[in-house]
């Protein structure tokens, strides 16, 4: 069995150790926050998801059973489910709200060069179908193993691999035409 580097921290959190809570938060919050931002494309909603996810950690730390799954995987699953909840709500929300979210992003003229490159990449990610985006976010950006990500998405490893390959092909098609400009900007 793979040892879980978070087990001891979770046990200390269950015993009320605030320092352990802070350490665990420092370890995983950046990843959770960035995952939620990529999934939701809304800084505010991503922060709410991150807060809700850690709230669940604080409440459920005492019930955590090591050995079933890595804590990191469980935490990402919790955050991902919170993202799904919000995405489902959005399907029912009016388009005005979606426009508001898009309008909150800064325009290219207001960005630095590296910001512009990031914006192109983020934009390309957002054009992916939902499941492809989830797969690339989990594996490419959050370093999950194929087995962890497949389990998280309720897929076979082969199906995950297929999603990843299609996502990367789509991203290549979108980003390769502007790659020289992007790479030039990256070098500056």
């Amino acid at each position, binding site marked *: 069995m793979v040892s879980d580097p978070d087990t001891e921290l979770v046990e200390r959190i269950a015993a009320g150790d605030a320092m352990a809570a802070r350490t665990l938060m420092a370890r995983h919050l950046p990843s959770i926050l960035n995952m939620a931002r990529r999934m939701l494309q809304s800084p505010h909603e991503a922060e709410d998801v991150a807060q809700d996810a850690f709230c669940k950690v604080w409440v459920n730390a005492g019930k955590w059973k090591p050995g079933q799954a890595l804590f990191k995987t469980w935490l990402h699953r919790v955050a991902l489910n919170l993202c799904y909840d919000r995405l489902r709500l959005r399907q029912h929300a009016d388009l005005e709200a979606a426009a508001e979210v898009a309008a909150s992003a800064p325009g290219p003229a207001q960005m630095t060069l590296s*910001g512009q490159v990031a914006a192109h*990449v983020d934009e390309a990610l957002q054009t992916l179908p939902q499941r492809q985006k989830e797969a690339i976010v989990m594996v490419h950006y959050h370093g999950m193993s*194929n*087995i962890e990500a497949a389990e998280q998405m309720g897929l076979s490893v082969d199906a995950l691999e297929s999603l*990843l*390959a299609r996502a990367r092909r789509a991203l290549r098609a979108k980003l390769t035409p502007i790659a020289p400009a992007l790479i030039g900007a*990256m070098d500056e």
Partner: protein
Amino acid sequence: MRTIETMSLERFKALVEAYGASENAWPASERAAALAFCNANPQARALREEAASLDAILAQAQTVRPSAALEARIMNGFKHPAANVATMRTTWMGAGAIAACLVLSLMAGWAVLKTSHGQVDLSDPAAWDLIGEDLEFPTSKS
């Protein structure tokens, strides 16, 4: 577990197309074989380099650091169990104090009755006339 003998160019291509150029992203069960295959095969190396160029662009995606305000919000939600125990203890102590006050009030009331009017039998209706209605009795008459 795949070995270099069972790794093919087709499988290697599928790996880099799905997982990119970083060997750390490749499935653990195929990593060693894929790496050895790549080192021995120029076509595989070219495929890996192609994947690396896309990885480099994808790495430019925006990454944010959590704000201090968000960290504070999250930590505010953390309740120390000892604090909960202390709260519970305070609650019980409060309840105990209220109960003690009630008992003391009753005892004091009886004491007042006894000292002001001697031995009074409250089951006797005549005793109520004796006490008078201006007396503040600590419990209801029913």
